[in-house]
């Protein structure tokens, strides 16, 4: 996620809005990114339609069927069943719901304030509030996200909302820093000076002139971060500070299923593969977006 600073150097200051066709063409060239995009669309569709397409929707909730417990993968249960007789495939599909909700909420409440703060701090560089914003960001960056999220989640009651808040708290400064460093460069470009000369308001310059040039690196970061948020969410649930049971959560499923390794491997291995695939898909997509906005195709 850090190497973005490197990538962003390649981003040419061009008007993105007028070049959709060109960007799609570039994106399409990268087969791996197309695969990533396809996987993500598939997973989101699965998550959205979970109650209707999963084979045993009741397995997602409070459901016990000991007669059917610890069954290996079969046609009736492609991913097998867990210790309570719940269908693992169903719980994986519902697990995507939780993961994507987490990603949506966390990135939703971090990206917009993070980017706005970075724009303001970068545009008004060296003013007192700019310094204040960047020092604040430095402080939050000083605590590793997983640690901060764990600490907040443990001091407050572990509800889904608190988990999301905890992760968001650790996340916004990365956007602020990214946007800040680019804004301080772009603000001296000729087209920004021209806009200023024509009497454009600071708000217009920041959001309509500067921001579009940063979309490439912001979108790349969002895509790579989506994987990280899922990872941290899974880690929180793995230690029992995530969503409370019986919520079908991929991290919880891996942690609870790992007790039954290696004989009943399917309980934890399939959720683990699901987590790996989601993160991989987001990374492939992120690489594609980065290449799409960079000047040269490798």
């Amino acid at each position: 996620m850090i190497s973005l600073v490197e990538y962003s150097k390649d981003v040419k200051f061009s008007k993105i809005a007028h070049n959709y066709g060109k960007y799609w063409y570039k994106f399409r060239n990268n087969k791996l990114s197309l695969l990533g995009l396809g996987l993500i669309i598939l997973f989101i569709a699965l998550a959205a339609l979970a109650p209707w397409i999963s084979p045993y929707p009741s397995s997602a909730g409070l459901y016990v069927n000991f007669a059917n417990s610890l069954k290996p993968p079969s046609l009736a249960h492609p991913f097998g069943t867990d210790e309570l007789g719940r269908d693992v495939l169903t719980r994986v599909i519902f697990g995507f719901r939780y993961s994507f909700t987490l990603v949506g909420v966390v990135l939703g409440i971090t990206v917009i304030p993070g980017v706005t703060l970075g724009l303001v701090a970068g545009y008004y560089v060296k003013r007192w509030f700019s310094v204040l914003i960047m020092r604040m960001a430095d402080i939050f960056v000083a605590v590793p996200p997983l640690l901060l999220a764990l600490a907040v989640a443990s001091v407050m009651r572990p509800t889904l909302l608190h988990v999301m808040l905890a992760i968001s708290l650790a996340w916004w400064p990365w956007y602020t820093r990214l946007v800040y460093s680019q804004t301080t460069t772009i603000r001296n470009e000729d087209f920004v000076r021209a806009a200023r000369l024509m009497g454009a308001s600071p708000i217009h310059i920041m959001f309509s002139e500067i921001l579009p040039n940063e979309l490439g690196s912001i979108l790349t970061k969002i895509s790579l971060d989506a994987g990280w948020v899922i990872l941290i969410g899974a880690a929180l649930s793995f230690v029992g500070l995530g969503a409370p049971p019986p919520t079908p959560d991929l991290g919880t499923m891996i942690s609870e299923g790992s007790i039954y390794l290696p004989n009943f491997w399917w309980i934890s291995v399939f959720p683990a593969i699901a987590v790996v695939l989601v993160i991989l898909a987001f990374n492939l997509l992120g690489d594609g977006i980065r290449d799409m906005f960079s000047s040269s195709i490798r």
Partner: protein
Amino acid sequence: MNYAVNYVLKRLAYGIISLFGLSILVFVLARVLPGTPVDLARLALGPNASISAINTFIDELHLNAPLPLQYLYWIEGIFTGNWGISLVTKRNVLTDVIEFLPATLDLLIMTAIIILLISVPLGLVAGRMQNTFVDNVIRVITYVGIAVPSFVVAILLQLFLGYDLHLFPIIGQLSPGIAPPPHITGLYLIDGLITGDFGAWVNALWHLILPSFSLALGPIAQETRILRAAVVENQNRDFTLAETSHGLPEGLLTTRYLLKPSIIPMLTVYALDVSSVIANAFLVELIFDWPGFSRYGLNAMLSKDLNAIIAVVLVAGILFIIANTLVDFTVSRLDPRVSEEMGD
């Protein structure tokens, strides 16, 4: 000439400001987030505390004072070593931290070494052999490395290399029956070397490999990709062409003249990753039953041991800031341009 000095001073000042900010952040976590003073007292004393104990607690910590004043009392306690009593171990949490930290530092050192040992050669090879079969194999490895969570790696390694093949120990820091090396720093890797207790040293090293590798895999992938990108960029520069045309041997060119400018972007991320080991070690220490600082912190979090949670966040934050300041210095030594830009 004064740029460098200026830069060092500036980074130090940033470090100190960050520490101050961290203290405020932790204070908010410790005193504000838990809720009212009574909530906080219950959190710190446990659910069965009596009313009088709660009142004494509130008085002792001045919880009814205004927040800025509370902060001063709190920071005074931090500096005088009065970090509060742990609910679980019933000792000063500072004592606990000092006892548990070395095991995690062992893990951190080993992880740091493994990351460098693997990612530098991989990154150099991938960059020099850009778009060949080898490069593609390394690319696939890095994708997998980034996508597989450390706790999944840990469980798999433990299961296959430890449980099935008996190549590595499954849990703990030393095999049963092996005495730890004499206590000097508390770090087995260092104590074993200093005192010449090589039996314990080798045993400790053997126990370190699986947990360290689980922690290292993600960073290895990340660093390899960054180094590869930098090598690809630098080998098309004029200085590489000049060195090649002077007949510099390929090996020397790659390991020396190409590595130095290319490793700089990697180092910043490397520092961040290594100092994050303390936070990411939570799950790995849990899985390998590692008697370290992160597992202590995790236990504290699960048992709502407020003072211990605070201590863990504070210490991890301090180590994180120190590590990053150190790397800024190193980078500025390697690349004089950095201090020239920042030192004015």
